[in-house]
């Protein structure tokens, strides 16, 4: 869909990259200073590279040989910036309609009202950006970018300044948008949890170069060399509070009760829970009479193993990633489609408050 081959030489920084971006969700992953944002900025037309070419669906956006440089306003590439970059003098509605109104009527694919309700912004349309929370601002930025009917959406660490609970809900919105609109996305991040949650393909960058591309699970498995310390993967999912009165909290996930450390919300509120991929235990039968309090039934969606490590993806209501040893996968003969139970201790559950 997009092919690029770029070189750019600045005082303290060199970018020299070539690659392809497909129709799905592509993550660009790497340490800060790797050139991830510069790459996005070249694709969107905000930074002009010194040499090379960019093509999108056979349209030349940039070619140093042909001396072609398409201005950003003529590319139809959407961008969501880290801090939203909302127009502070305009209301939420005017922000979202900014690009929509500049799109020729025949090219308009998404209605602002549809986007505002999809992103839960309908109550906020008359507010100014200064009156919004960080999460709300990013949702407006996403709606604004999509309302201009881009051919592809670039997201430059859009969640970096948000807390876990808000990240979670926006990642869900993004997944939904990708599904609903079949909008290709490029997602820049240095957070493995965000990348695994969203992307099919991961492009890895370091020092202004692309060091490889892989699937996101391969990245987790350590099957590919990565220059940053990859954080331990934590599954995050939403749950509903049943009882928050005692030292042990009770929540419900997809019809199953789970106990957690002490909760602060009221019954009926939703909370975001986190559980480490290495703190989940896979059991083939339904386990009984044991000290761990929580059992979630589910089906195996995917098994990947390499170099002694393995990740098993289980659909247990939320999709959960379980880290195992390769020999455990082998001994239990874990395969796609198999029904399993996931077991974990309530003390290992992290609770992220929504405020």
């Amino acid at each position, binding site marked *: 869909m997009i092919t690029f081959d770029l070189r750019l030489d600045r005082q303290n920084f060199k970018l020299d990259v070539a690659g392809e971006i497909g129709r799905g969700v592509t993550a660009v992953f790497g340490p800060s200073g790797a050139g991830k944002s510069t790459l996005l900025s070249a694709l969107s037309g905000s930074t002009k590279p010194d040499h090379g070419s960019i093509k999108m669906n056979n349209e030349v956006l940039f070619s140093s040989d042909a001396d072609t440089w398409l201005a950003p306003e003529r590319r139809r590439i959407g961008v969501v910036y880290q801090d939203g970059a909302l127009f*502070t003098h305009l209301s939420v509605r005017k922000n979202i309609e900014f690009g929509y109104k500049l799109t020729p009527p025949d090219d308009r694919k998404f209605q602002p009202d549809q986007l505002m309700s999809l992103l839960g912004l309908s109550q906020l349309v008359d507010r100014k950006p200064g009156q919004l929370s960080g999460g709300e601002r990013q949702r407006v930025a996403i709606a604004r970018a999509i309302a201009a009917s881009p051919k592809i959406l670039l997201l430059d660490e859009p969640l970096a300044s948000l807390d876990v609970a808000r990240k979670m809900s926006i990642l869900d919105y993004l997944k939904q948008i990708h599904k609903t609109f079949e909008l290709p996305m490029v997602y820049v991040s240095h957070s493995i949890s965000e990348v695994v949650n969203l992307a099919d393909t991961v492009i890895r960058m370091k020092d202004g170069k692309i060091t490889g591309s892989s699937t996101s699970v391969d990245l987790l498995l350590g099957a590919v060399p990565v220059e940053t310390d990859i954080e331990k993967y934590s599954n995050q999912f939403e749950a509903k509070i049943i009882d928050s009165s005692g030292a042990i909290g009770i929540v419900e996930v997809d019809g199953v009760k789970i106990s957690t450390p002490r909760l602060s919300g009221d019954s009926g509120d939703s909370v975001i829970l986190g559980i480490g991929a290495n703190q989940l235990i896979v059991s083939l039968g339904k386990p009984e009479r044991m000290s761990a309090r929580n059992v979630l039934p589910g089906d195996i969606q995917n098994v990947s193993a390499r170099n002694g490590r393995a990740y098993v993806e289980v659909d247990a209501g939320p999709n959960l990633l379980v880290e195992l040893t390769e020999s455990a996968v082998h001994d239990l003969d874990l395969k796609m489609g198999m029904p399993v139970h996931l077991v974990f201790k309530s003390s290992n559950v992290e609770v992220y408050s929504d405020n």
Partner: protein
Amino acid sequence: MTSEATIILLSLRIAALAMLIAIPSGMILAWLLARKDFRGKFLLDTLVSLPLAVPPVVIGYFLLWSIGGNSWIGKAWESLFGGNLAFTWLAASLAAAVVALPLIVRSFAAALQGVDPQLETAARVLGAGPWRTFFTVTLPLAYRGVLAGVLLGFVRALSEFGATIVVAGNIPGSTQGIPSAIFTRLSTGDTGTAWRLAFVSIAIGVAALLVHNLLLNRAKDSTEKSPETAR
């Protein structure tokens, strides 16, 4: 003797035309200084501020040399419209514009610097061309500072004396604004009129400065409150 009302109206007309000249050129210069990196930027910055640093009489003399009857501009003007460009109210406006320009450019540049360039980038990516971006994003976000600069430039143009008297003279009803009228009345001993005109000058100046400071305070508040520019 021309009436005081005529003098005040003429002064306002000269200053208004001066603003029509200085606002667009000032905005282009301010935009170059605030947003662009180029060779000779330092030189341009110095040149723009020069009218603040040299005696207005020198500016007037320089202008007279540029647009007087022997200059090519002066000759071109004469063949097009007949008559002199120097010693007309247009020349007085030109002098006022040149003296007001440094204040306008500096105010505009500060106002433009208060606008996060990423918002302009975002507007371009959303489909707005450079002009539309300027008029729908940059200017609305910078308008308080811009308006303050216009006010400051306008009162500076109204008080212009030294450059004007050299390039436009002191012709009642044509180039005699408030300052040169006060000068004439003082030298002929008509201190009553001089006082009244002085009072009008002070009243306009105080009003303009009050609004100017109010606008700048508001502009500062809105920048501090805005989360996008608070980084």
